[in-house]
């Protein structure tokens, strides 16, 4: 009897679609996947409806890669549905793993976001400001829209997650490794971060590191870089010291500081707090006013420190009223 094909699904919650593209970036490998597996549900690439997933038996899917954060009731509904239908559910990419870029919306309240988008947006027609409602009654019946949540959640905040694959997007080599691990059944303990290193970016980074003393921070374009020297030593913010390695040091190799998308190191809860510790300690000043002046060059420290992980941080959101 022929071996039963692997049943897989891919879904996007609050995501940009980059993770789906990353899966396709595995080039001809995706053809091997298609040969070895039935892709049962993949909104960006394959025709399918939620009803098709609902008709599946529980646990019928062997593997689901869930991209994207949980921003609204639709994201949560499908996350729960796919959890029920899947033997293995993977939080795939930074958004599902840590909240990702959509998670930065946790720095504003739902009211602020709606106000900005639907009421005070310069491109709105005056007098035509409308806030979408989850339910609207019209003559033909009731219309429904997914309810927009008060904040962004990670996938693991709404369902149990078996594995995490970090990255914005995950590197193609790791996507292959994850798929092969599932095919061969060679899986790590549940809850593991798969396809990444246990050490910091700096460990993989080929740049030369010496003593760090910074008197001024720069944006990458403001400086003629030394291509061989640590970016932090040159005053370019790099999240490498507080970020898991495994991507191949993609950003620092192109002269841009690490963005932190691979998330915190093992046992670190709050990536931003760890990173700010690293940034602050290299400032070459002992004078409070001067330290503040040096730090003032950084445009958005909160957003920079928690670029991919606001919903995963200890505080998870802004506490402003």
């Amino acid at each position, binding site marked *: 009897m022929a071996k039963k094909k692997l049943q897989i699904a891919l879904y996007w919650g609050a995501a940009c679609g980059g993770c789906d593209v990353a899966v396709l970036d595995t080039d001809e490998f995706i053809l091997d996947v298609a040969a070895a597996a039935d892709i049962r549900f993949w909104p960006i690439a394959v025709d399918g409806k939620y009803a098709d997933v609902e008709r599946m038996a529980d646990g019928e899917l062997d593997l689901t890669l869930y991209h994207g954060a949980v921003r609204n009731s639709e994201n949560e509904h499908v996350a729960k549905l796919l959890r029920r239908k899947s033997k293995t559910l993977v939080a795939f990419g930074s958004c599902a793993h840590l909240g990702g870029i959509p998670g930065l919306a946790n720095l504003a309240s739902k009211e602020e976001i709606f106000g900005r988008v639907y009421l005070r947006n310069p491109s709105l027609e005056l007098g035509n400001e409308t806030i979408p409602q989850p339910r609207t009654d019209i003559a033909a019946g009731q219309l429904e829209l997914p309810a927009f949540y008060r904040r962004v959640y990670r996938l693991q905040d709404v369902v149990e997650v078996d594995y995490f694959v970090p990255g914005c997007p995950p590197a193609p080599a790791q996507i292959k490794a994850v798929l092969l691990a599932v095919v061969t059944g060679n899986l790590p303990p549940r809850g593991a971060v798969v396809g990444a290193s246990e050490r910091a970016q700096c460990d993989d980074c080929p740049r030369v590191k010496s003593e760090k003393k910074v008197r001024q921070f720069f944006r990458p374009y403001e400086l003629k870089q030394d291509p061989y020297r640590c970016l932090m030593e040159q005053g370019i913010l790099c999240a490498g010291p507080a970020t898991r390695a495994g991507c191949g040091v993609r950003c620092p190799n192109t002269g841009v500081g690490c963005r932190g998308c691979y998330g915190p190191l093992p046992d*670190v809860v709050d990536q931003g*707090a760890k990173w*700010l510790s690293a940034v602050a300690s290299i400032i070459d000043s002992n004078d409070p006013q001067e330290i503040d002046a040096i730090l003032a060059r950084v445009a958005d420290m909160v957003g920079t420190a928690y670029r991919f992980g606001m919903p995963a941080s200890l*505080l998870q959101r*802004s506490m402003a*009223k």
Partner: protein
Amino acid sequence: MSFEPRIVGFLCNWCSYTGADLAGTSRIQYPPNVRVIRVNCSARIDPSFVVKALAIGADGVLLCGCHPGDCHYSTGNYKALRRYRLLSSMLGGLGIERDRVRLEWVSASEGQRFAEVVTDMTERLRPLGPSRVLSTLKTDRLER
């Protein structure tokens, strides 16, 4: 009954903890609102300690180290100072009142000063009321 803020205090072993000890042995009265944790140096106070204290319900966090120039490890308190300046501005950006996290220098001989710092901090936290962090995180878990 008036609101009693809960303050977590991280005190360096060489100056501030000894200073707090002196306040005790000298029988100086100060509010019982501070829970003291001894660390070897103010540079040991990782910003995540402060964030965690706030996330699990502290109304304020007090960081104490040796006066500038007096650090037992020569520069640890300067590192603490830089981290504090950055952390404080970040917490401000996250909607947490600046008065909730405070860095003070207290030497081993300044028992009186430690008592004054704790008294002052407690009085400043009282009008702010309880920290909203824990209650907000709890509500977020129950209601979307």
